[in-house]
């Protein structure tokens, strides 16, 4: 950028003046920390987050935490990275659980092992509080980098009233893809060529699309990515081809799934309005469905083609690299408080995400809640077959390499086979620098 000399002088002057205003004199007082958080559900929960942090500040007089809203999961990553590069790292961030590997590769995360040790516990004891399925996205190279905060698995939501109308038993939900296809056909209503009720809807928008593809690929026996090493994805494999072909068949062949790539909120809206009789969506939407459905609904495991398996979703708490020791300590206090059984249980009841801390399910409030809302148990039961969420070097671009192609398929512009080959090629290109630095760098 080019400035005239006068302009540069003017800017320098304004900058100095504003700088003087922006830096009040340092005073002794509580350690001030920022917590970056994306809003995973609707705005009322942004208010709930305010309540949570207020309670923390009232019970911890030596720390003053501020909750900073930072947009979607992807925006939160951009903002955190920009802040770290600008030398102003936040003290803690609620970060999409699968971004941790990429951040660790870029040296943007604080290794939490020392903080755990300073508390007099071991890594095993610390991790032991959380469901085993969540460890994969929290531990990198045997060190702890993240603390699970709110997590999800995909679920199959069924409109029980419509199922009964169609002569199906909602208490015996479909368990295989074949049964699900059959249900979807029976639940689709047509008026001539026009569909008045869709059998099933699966969301496909950035972020969600990659997660649903992973869900389908895993229940088709596949692996999607290399869990041990961040440089490989398996887009062009039979398991993923089968998954995408089945999804495409629902749209193009059986015509029981609305065509095109549909974002998550549109899917939940059409389920609530009765326009779609079944949907695959995160357990994070459960509270919304419970509050808004004017009909009986059921939630069930994601049906399998080869095996029962689902990926983890949701977010973990992280501490960025480059913080002063006192802020790091204060952030750690906040993180431990937020992931305690009481608080994580409270957050789970408010959102629909499951509580990662197993002890949360033993608190009286939670026992009460589960008795009244047995549907909240499904996601927890499904954890037995849950696996880590895909994480690679440059997770977001690698994910978009696939999502762009899947959207083309659902829009009827490409066939699954060529789309996956293109996605693999694009992802290999994105992963190339990392592989050149690691697996292809020979001694």
């Amino acid at each position, binding site marked *: *950028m*080019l*400035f*005239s000399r*006068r*302009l540069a002088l*003017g*800017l320098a002057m*304004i*900058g100095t003046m*504003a*700088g003087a*205003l*922006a830096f009040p004199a340092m005073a002794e007082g509580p350690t001030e920390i*920022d917590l970056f958080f*994306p*809003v*995973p*559900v*609707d*705005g*009322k929960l*942004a*208010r709930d987050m305010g309540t949570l942090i207020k309670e923390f500040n009232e019970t911890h007089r030596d720390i003053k935490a*501020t*909750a*900073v*809203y*930072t*947009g*979607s999961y992807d*925006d939160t990553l*951009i*903002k955190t*990275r*920009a*802040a770290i*590069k*600008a*030398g*102003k790292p936040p003290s803690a961030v609620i970060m999409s659980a699968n971004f941790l590997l990429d951040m660790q590769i870029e040296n943007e995360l604080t290794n939490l092992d020392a903080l755990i040790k300073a508390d007099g516990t071991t890594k095993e004891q610390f991790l032991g509080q959380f469901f085993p399925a969540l460890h994969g996205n929290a531990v990198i190279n045997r060190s702890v980098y993240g603390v699970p905060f709110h997590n*999800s698995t995909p679920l199959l939501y069924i409109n029980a009233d419509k199922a009964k109308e169609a002569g199906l038993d909602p208490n015996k939900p479909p368990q295989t893809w074949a049964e699900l296809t059959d249900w979807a056909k029976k639940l689709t209503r047509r008026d001539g060529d026009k569909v008045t009720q869709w059998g099933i809807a699966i969301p496909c928008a950035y972020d*969600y699309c990659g997660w649903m593809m992973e869900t389908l690929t895993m229940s088709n026996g596949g692996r999607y990515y290399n869990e041990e090493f961040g440089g490989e994805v398996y887009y062009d494999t039979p398991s993923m081809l089968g998954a995408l072909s089945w999804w495409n068949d629902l749209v193009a062949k059986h015509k029981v799934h609305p065509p095109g790539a549909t974002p*998550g*909120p549109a899917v*939940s*809206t059409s389920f*609530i*309005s009765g326009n779609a009789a079944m949907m695959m*969506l*995160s357990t*994070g*939407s459960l509270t*919304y*469905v419970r509050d*808004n459905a*004017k009909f009986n609904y059921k939630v069930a495991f994601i049906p399998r083609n080869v095996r029962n398996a689902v990926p983890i*979703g*949701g977010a973990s708490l992280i501490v960025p690299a480059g913080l002063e020791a006192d802020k790091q300590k204060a952030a750690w206090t906040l993180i431990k408080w937020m992931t305690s059984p009481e608080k994580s249980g409270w957050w789970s009841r408010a*959102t629909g995400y499951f509580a990662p801390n197993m002890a949360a399910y033993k608190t009286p409030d939670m026992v009460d809640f589960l008795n009244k809302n047995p549907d909240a148990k499904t996601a927890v039961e499904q954890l037995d077959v849950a696996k880590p969420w895909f994480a690679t070097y440059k997770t977001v671009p690698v994910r978009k390499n696939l999502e762009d192609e899947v959207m083309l398929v659902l829009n009827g512009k490409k066939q699954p086979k060529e789309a996956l080959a293109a996605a693999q090629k694009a992802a290999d290109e994105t992963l190339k620098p990392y592989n050149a630095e690691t697996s292809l760098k020979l001694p």
Partner: protein
Amino acid sequence: MKLIDWLTRDAPLATRNEITPKLGFLLTVLLAIVWLIPFLWMVVATLRPPSDGINTMAELMPSLKPTLDNVRDAWEIGDFPRYTLNTTIICAGILLVQFVTITLAGFAFARLKFAGKTLIFYLFLMQLMLVPVLLIVPNLSLVAQLGLYDTLTGVMMPFFASAFGTFLMRQAFEAIPTELEDAALIDGASLIQRIRHIYVPLSMPSFSAFAIISVTSHWNDFLWPLMVINSPDKRPLTVGLSVFTKTAEGTQAWGTIAAGTLMVIAPLLVTFLVFQKRFISSFVTSGIK
């Protein structure tokens, strides 16, 4: 045909009996209706009680029992007066500094003679080709080094100089006859006096056209303020609004979103309605030499 006659009553006399201008008007009316539908939907959704259920959400027919509940909800979730104040400070601050910088830079490119003028001007214009997202990290580092992280000044700073504005003012100044300046020169006017009393008053339409573009684009900017601002009380409207529109795995409360959106656009909308004639004439005249 009565309607068309009424719509074209202000058309120049010479074209009043021709068919083409009438078709043009008809097309404009059609386009206006298409543009109005989302806005109408937003108003209807704002007033729709949640008890109507989500089935009626997409309907344009207003609810029989309109309610202000959504407005109240949105009002409670976001500190809208504060957000509006912040956005106003940001837009006004940027615009005021821009007026000074683009006037001086535009004048330099239009009238002053210095080495490499054309080259520098083209380099200046090249800045227009850069996607703003590219500059987020370098800009943020600079803003943080100046101690402006998490300040409104930090949000404004990267936009104090405007390549587009400089270009616009250069074009406007070049269209002003040099004889006017020469006359002032004979009367002994200094450089600043000539700019102040000849160039600026004669370029008012270009200034207002630029003001509209500058204010609307910064009013709507989301990503950059999101990067700079941490404190909730310094959020501009866009960041405040997105607290309840951005969802990852969840769902959306359309009524509240519609109400919030209405609150965000209201100040711009009212300004436009009040100054409608001036806005339009500024665009019309700024194109004519």
